[in-house]
């Protein structure tokens, strides 16, 4: 084949752009993520990067919301503006969860005294964390507008969405199509708005609570697997026969689109203040 001079094909036409024409800034800019706050998890995930969707799943009662709330607190503690949307939990419960993690006290079961109030207020002045007080689910088009507002007006970079079912409007026959469309749109929004979404997804029911949830257990698994950039599966080790270590939780990084590193990180649930620590 006769060699073609490069100058012949360097003119951009619509969506066809020569790589040499891409902004020079791309070569300097590595999208280093925001740390998860746990080094053991960062080793597999390499942080949370903008423009990505991280799906978190686990069997019921393992602590998906608690884990994600702690993750949001960790992001906020790196001066990253975060927005917690939990359509399943009332805002006061979420606020108490945040306070428990920040103050390392079980604010779920005790009222704030003057010292707690002062400490929590100081913490909130320091770290940018927002909640959505609305507990009635929304749809993806309304959420898209709110996400844009959150980014433009509050500088939000990381958003927790608890959980997918509250965003999906479907009839029984159209469940998979509706999940597919919603997750695809979320993926586009993360990319377009340069935000990171932490999306909680429920698994299909497993046969017993001792068995581990897997990547294929996700409701609407094929589209979630396809559009999620990262997938985290939580498993409380005391629920399986092999491991009785109290409070040990396995976080399986089952997908990492950017780096491809997959594996298990272990955290230890702290019932005294409802959060997770690592060794």
């Amino acid at each position, binding site marked *: 084949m006769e060699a073609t001079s490069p100058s012949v094909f360097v003119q951009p036409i619509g969506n066809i752009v020569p790589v040499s024409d891409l902004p020079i800034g791309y070569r300097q800019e*590595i999208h*280093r*993520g925001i*740390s998860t*706050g*746990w*080094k053991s998890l*960062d*080793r*597999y995930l*390499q*942080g949370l990067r903008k423009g990505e969707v991280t799906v978190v799943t686990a069997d019921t009662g393992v602590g998906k919301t608690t884990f994600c709330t702690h993750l949001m607190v*960790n992001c906020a*503690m*790196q001066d990253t503006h975060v927005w917690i949307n939990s359509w399943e939990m009332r805002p006061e419960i979420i606020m108490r969860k945040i306070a428990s993690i920040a103050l390392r006290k079980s604010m779920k079961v005790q009222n704030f005294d003057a010292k707690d109030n002062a400490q929590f207020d100081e913490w909130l002045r320091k770290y940018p964390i927002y909640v959505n007080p609305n507990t009635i689910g929304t749809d993806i088009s309304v959420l898209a507008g709110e996400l844009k507002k959150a980014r433009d007006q509050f500088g939000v970079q990381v958003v927790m969405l608890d959980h997918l079912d509250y965003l999906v409007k479907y009839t029984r026959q159209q469940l998979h199509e509706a999940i597919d469309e919603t997750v695809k749109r979320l993926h586009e929004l993360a990319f377009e708005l340069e935000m990171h979404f932490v999306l909680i997804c429920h*698994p*299909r*029911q*497993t*046969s*017993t609570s001792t*068995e*581990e*949830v*897997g*990547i*294929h*257990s996700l409701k609407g698994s094929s589209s979630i697997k396809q559009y999620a950039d990262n997938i985290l599966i939580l498993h409380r080790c005391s629920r*399986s026969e*092999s491991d009785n270590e109290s409070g040990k939780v396995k976080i*399986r990084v*089952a997908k990492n689109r950017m*780096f491809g*590193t*997959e*594996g*298990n990180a272990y955290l*230890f649930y702290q019932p005294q203040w409802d959060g*997770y*620590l*690592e*060794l």
Partner: protein
Amino acid sequence: MKKHPSIHFDRNLGSFVGLSESIMKELHRNYPNVALEKELARMTTWLQSPKGKQRKGTIGFIINWLNNATTSLPENKDEPCEEIPAILNPYLEELWKQHPHLYLFNRLAT
């Protein structure tokens, strides 16, 4: 899966009738991630409950149940973790250097 009209749940026996060895083999082959015997025991319990009384326990019922139980075997449980490539170490060090207080905050006191 071929048609198996004879398969049904016998309420007097409290078990499935017509599940031959070849059908069981076929089910094992088609549902490798399902603990088949355990799922059949669960179906038996459900079919004897008030909610399941109307169902006949045909092959269609069994297949539908198994389609919804594709994770009853532990997945990736003993799969070894990947070695993190050494090339990522500087990336991680960079990621962690900004907020050292956070890792102390999240570390279990030993």
